Every structure is written in C-alpha cells, then in structure tokens.
C-alpha cells in the first residue's frame, strides 16, 4: 500500500529510556514529520491484588524483537509513517518506573495516533512479554485482560 518504508526499530533492554532522546532519534530519520505521537507505560503502585512494589518483565529473546518488527510492517501497510521506535524494558522494575515506550512520527497526526495505539494494543496482546507483580501479599503473574483483547480485535489482530 505504501511506497515509503518508515525507519523502525525495537529495543528490549534492562535500561531506562528518555523521551527526549528517543524523539531526537525519531526526528533525525528525515522526512518532513509534522506529528509525533508517543505512549509511555509505567509500573503502577497498586492493582486488583493490592500494593505493587515492583514487577518483573520476561521476554522471549529473538521472538519478542522479530514479532514487534513484523507489526511495524503491518502498521506501515495501514498508515503512512515516517519513523517508529519501541523500547520495552525487561527485568525488575520498581513502582513508578517506565516499562514501555512507543513513538510514531508521520506527516499528519491521525496516522501517528492510530499507529501508536495499534502497536500498543499489539504489545499488550500478542508480543511475547510477560509481567509478574511483586506485591506485599506475594508475587503473581499478571492475567491477560479482556479489554486488551477487545482493543486488539478492533484492528483484526
């Protein structure tokens, strides 16, 4: 559908990230971006099971990256995009810490917003990543949420 291939990258890392640094990288990709939509997910300090001190995030090294790269291709088929960056952290993350970043630049805002939400819905429901919550009452694997599944189904994911 689109002749232009956006500049896309995904990083799975233990390190924290900075929106300003990622934004500079996205805009360095060239093109004439007018719009950048971003999403940052944080470790919440509370959940259905009570207080959360930290989480542990597990990935499937190799498949996590390749499945996210595949969803970039899918997004580029659906919308005209200039650059996409995803950072997903793994390992132990304390309450309030950043977990995930999705940044999408495009000429106009509608594409950037839609693709950013699309990629987040994918990360929540299809990319091999798992969260374990470490709370005062113990540790438990996070259950997949129906609302996330419904969000993903909107896109036919």
């Amino acid at each position, binding site marked *: 559908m689109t002749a232009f291939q956006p500049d896309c990258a995904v990083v799975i890392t233990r390190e924290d990230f900075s929106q300003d640094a990622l934004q500079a990288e996205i805009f360095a990709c060239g093109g004439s971006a007018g719009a950048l939509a971003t999403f940052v997910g944080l470790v919440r300090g509370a959940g259905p099971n009570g207080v959360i001190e930290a989480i542990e995030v597990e990935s499937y090294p190799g498949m996590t990256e390749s*499945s996210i790269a595949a969803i970039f291709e899918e997004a580029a088929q659906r919308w005209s995009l200039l650059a996409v960056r995803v950072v*997903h952290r793994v390992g132990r993350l304390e309450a309030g810490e950043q*977990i995930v970043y999705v940044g999408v630049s495009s000429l106009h805002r509608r594409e950037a917003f839609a693709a950013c939400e699309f990629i987040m819905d994918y990360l*929540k429901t299809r990319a*091999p*990543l*798992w969260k374990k919550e470490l709370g005062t009452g113990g540790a438990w*694997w996070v259950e997949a949420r129906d609302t996330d599944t419904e969000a993903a189904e909107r896109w036919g994911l």
Partner: protein
Amino acid sequence: MKIDVLFFARIREQLGVSRLTAQVEQDITLEQLQLCLAEQHASHWSEVLGGENVVRAVNQVVAENDQVLAEGDEVAFYPPVTGG
C-alpha cells in the same frame, strides 16, 4: 530428531524448567510433541501444556497443532502475553 523446547513465564515456573532438548521421531506434529513431553515428564505437564490458553510457537512464529516439526526446530510454550 532433536527439538529445542522453551517454556516461558507461568509455564516455565509450573514445569520448573526453562529449556530442554526433546528426542522425538521424524516428522511429528506440534500436537504429538506436546503428548511426548507430557508422557516423558510428571503428570502435571499434560495439564500445564494442554491448558486452554497456552500459545505455541515454532521457530519464533505462532503455530497450530498440526504443524509438522523438523530437526533442530525451536518450539516454545507460553501463557497469554501481558506486555506493554
């Protein structure tokens, strides 16, 4: 033939193993591999691997029961994902 088998998250914890090499007959399907693994290990393996929402991937691509495996394939079993 040999198949690399990986387990993640809750499944990894329930089985107490993250990775193993399975020695199986040529050309078995993903479903047959799962039955073999359950036979060769403790009884709860059958329940854990056969659970309703278990996702299976072959060579890092999500796969169905009838997929035929080849020597050296990497097969993963994992629970519903919860990233983002």
